[in-house]
C-alpha cells in the first residue's frame, strides 16, 4: 500500500513555505526532491568515510571504493544489467555525448543515417545533429501527430538541408531502412509525457538494419517505472540520478558489455588507463575506461541510497501511484479545458503517457502563468523544456509543464486547478 503522507515526511524540503504558502513542487521532471536517507547517506560519507577511490590501500580508501562498487551494483540490479556495464557520468547529456564521441565517431560515416524522434530533449538531438553534420550522415526525425504521439505510418513529409546537414522528417515507417546505424529514442517525452512503444520500434529497427545500435534516453522513464534492459532490446540506456531522488552531478550510461568493450575512451586521464609509458598508454577495462578522474563519490553514494528508497517503495507501486495522479489531473484539467481556461498538449490517456502534463492558460504567456502560480507556492516549469522543435511544432512559443512524482498528492492537483483559475484575473 502506497502511503503518500509517509513518503512526504521523508522529504525535508516539503516543509518549506514559498511566499507564505506550502510548497507544491510540480517540476520533478526537471529534478526531483531528495529524501532524508539520500541526504544523510552523502553527509555520512563526508563525515565518516571520505577518501579517494582506487588509490589507497588504507581503510578509508577501501571503504570508499566499496561504497562506489556497491552503488554500481544497486544501479545494475535496478535495471537488470551487469555491474561492469554501468558507467558513471555527470548526467544523461554526458552519457549521450559519450556514446556519440566514442561509438558514433568511429562507426557512423557518409551515407549512413541516425534516426531520432521529434520528442527528443535537446540532449538527444543536438549531439546527433553535430555528428551527422561532421560525418556527412543523414539525420532522420520521426515526426509527431497533433496528439503528440509518434507518426508510425504514412509518407515522408520533407527533407531540409542546412549548413551541411540533411534532415529528413517523416513517419517511422517512411524513414526505416538499412542505412540507419544509430536509433536514439526517448522512452518518455519530458514535455508531453508521450511514451512511444520503443520495445516494438527497437525490434523493427533491428530487423530492418541488422546492425544498427539503439540508445534509449530513459531520463523520464527509470525514475517512474520498472525498466529492464534485457527486455527492452536496446544497446545503450542513459538516465540522470537527480531525477530519481539522487543528487545532481551523477548520471548513468548502461551499454552492452560487448559493445562498450570495443569502444575507445571518451575522456583521458587518471583511473581509465591500463599501463602508461612516456609515449602512450593502454586503456583499462570497462567501466573504468570511461570514468577518467575522480568521480562524484558522495553523489554516487547518494544515488545508491535513492535506489534503496525506490526499491523499498517498489517501482510497480510508484508507477501505479503516479498513474492515479495523472488520471486525476487529466480529468480535472479536462474540465478547465472544456471551459476554455486552458489548452492541454499530449496524449489524452494516462495509459500512453508518463508523468508530464503540458498546457497553456488561455491568453496568458507560459512564463507569466508560472510566475503567478509560484506566488501561490506552486513550482511549475515554463518555456520550451529543452525541446524547442517539439514545442514550436504545436504553434506556441512556450508551454507550462506540470510533472508528478511520488510525493505529490490529489490535494495538490486540486490546489493547482483552483489557482490556475486565478491566473487570468491578474490580467483581467
Amino acid at each position, binding site marked *: 500500500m502506497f502511503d503518500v503522507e509517509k513518503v512526504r515526511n521523508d522529504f525535508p524540503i516539503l516543509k518549506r513555505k514559498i*511566499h*507564505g*504558502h506550502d510548497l507544491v513542487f510540480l517540476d520533478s521532471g526537471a529534478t526531483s526532491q531528495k529524501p532524508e536517507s539520500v541526504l544523510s547517506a552523502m553527509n555520512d560519507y563526508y563525515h565518516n568515510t571520505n577518501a579517494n577511490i582506487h588509490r589507497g590501500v588504507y581503510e578509508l580508501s577501501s571503504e570508499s571504493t566499496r561504497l562506489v562498487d556497491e552503488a554500481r551494483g544497486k544501479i545494475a540490479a535496478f535495471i537488470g544489467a551487469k555491474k561492469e556495464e554501468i558507467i558513471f557520468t555527470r548526467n544523461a547529456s554526458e552519457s549521450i555525448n559519450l556514446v556519440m564521441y566514442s561509438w558514433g565517431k568511429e562507426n557512423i560515416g557518409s551515407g549512413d543515417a541516425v534516426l531520432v524522434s521529434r520528442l527528443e530533449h535537446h540532449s538527444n538531438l543536438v549531439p546527433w545533429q553535430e555528428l551527422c553534420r561532421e560525418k556527412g550522415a543523414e539525420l532522420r526525425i520521426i515526426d509527431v501527430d497533433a496528439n503528440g504521439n509518434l507518426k508510425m505510418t504514412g509518407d515522408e513529409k520533407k527533407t531540409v538541408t542546412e549548413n551541411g546537414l540533411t534532415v529528413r522528417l517523416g513517419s517511422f515507417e517512411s524513414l526505416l531502412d538499412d542505412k540507419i546505424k544509430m536509433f536514439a529514442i526517448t522512452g518518455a517525452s519530458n514535455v508531453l509525457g508521450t511514451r512511444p512503444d520503443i520495445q516494438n520500434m527497437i525490434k523493427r529497427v533491428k530487423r530492418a538494419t541488422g546492425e544498427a545500435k539503439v540508445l534509449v534516453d530513459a531520463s523520464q522513464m527509470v525514475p517512474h517505472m520498472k525498466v529492464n534492459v534485457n527486455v527492452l532490446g536496446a544497446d545503450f540506456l542513459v538516465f540522470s540520478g537527480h531525477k530519481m531522488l539522487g543528487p545532481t552531478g551523477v548520471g548513468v550510461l548502461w551499454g552492452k558489455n560487448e559493445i562498450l568493450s570495443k569502444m575507445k575512451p571518451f575522456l583521458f586521464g587518471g583511473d581509465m588507463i591500463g599501463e602508461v609509458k612516456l609515449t602512450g598508454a593502454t586503456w583499462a577495462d570497462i567501466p573504468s575506461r570511461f570514468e577518467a578522474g575522480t568521480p562524484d563519490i558522495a553523489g554516487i553514494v547518494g544515488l545508491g541510497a535513492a535506489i534503496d528508497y525506490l526499491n523499498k517503495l517498489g517501482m510497480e507501486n510508484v508507477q501505479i501511484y503516479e498513474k492515479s495522479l495523472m488520471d486525476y489531473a487529466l480529468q480535472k484539467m479536462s474540465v478547465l479545458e472544456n471551459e476554455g481556461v486552458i489548452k492541454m498538449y499530449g496524449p489524452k490517456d494516462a495509459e500512453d503517457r508518463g508523468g508530464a502534463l503540458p498546457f497553456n492558460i488561455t491568453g*496568458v*504567456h*507560459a*512564463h*507569466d502563468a508560472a*510566475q*503567478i502560480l*509560484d*506566488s*501561490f*507556492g506552486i513550482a511549475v516549469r*515554463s*518555456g*520550451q523544456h529543452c525541446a*524547442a522543435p517539439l*514545442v*514550436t511544432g504545436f504553434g*506556441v*512559443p*512556450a508551454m507550462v509543464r506540470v510533472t508528478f512524482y511520488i510525493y505529490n498528492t490529489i490535494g495538490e492537483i486540486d490546489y493547482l486547478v483552483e489557482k490556475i483559475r486565478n491566473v487570468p*484575473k*491578474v*490580467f*483581467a
Partner: protein
Amino acid sequence: MCLKYSRSSSLITMLDYKEIIVDHYKNPRNFGELEGADLTLDETNASCGDMIRIQVKTQKLKNSKTQNGEGDLVIVDMKWRGVGCAISTAAASMLSEKIVGMNKKDLEQYGEAGVVEMLGGEVNPGRMKCATLAYRGLLKIFENNG
C-alpha cells in the same frame, strides 16, 4: 491588478505585475509596422521562444561631446512586433517611448538597471531575459550600425 493578489503574502513576486505592466501588456504602445523604417532587427529569447522585431528610424546627429565627423546615430522613432510574455511585452512597449532621442551611449547608460527601474524597480531574476529582450535588440541595432 487585483487587490486580492497584492494583499497576499506573495507580494514580492506579484510586484512584477503592477498596474503599469498590465496596462502596457494589454495596450502595447508603438506596436506594429514602421513605414519607412531604416533599420530592422529580430531578437529572440532562445530559452522561452519569445521573439521581437524592432524597426526604427534614425538620424545622424552631431554631438559636441563626440568628435566623429558624421555624428551619432540617434533613434527618432520605433515600432515593434512580436510574441512574448507580459514582462517582455511591457518592457518593449515602455522602452519604445523612452528610446526616442537616445544614442548608443544614452542607451548604455540607461542599462539593464534602467529597464528594471522602468518596470517598477523589481524583476524576478528568472525573468531578466524577458525584461531585457527589447533592450538587447536596441543595443544590437546600435552595435551593428554604430
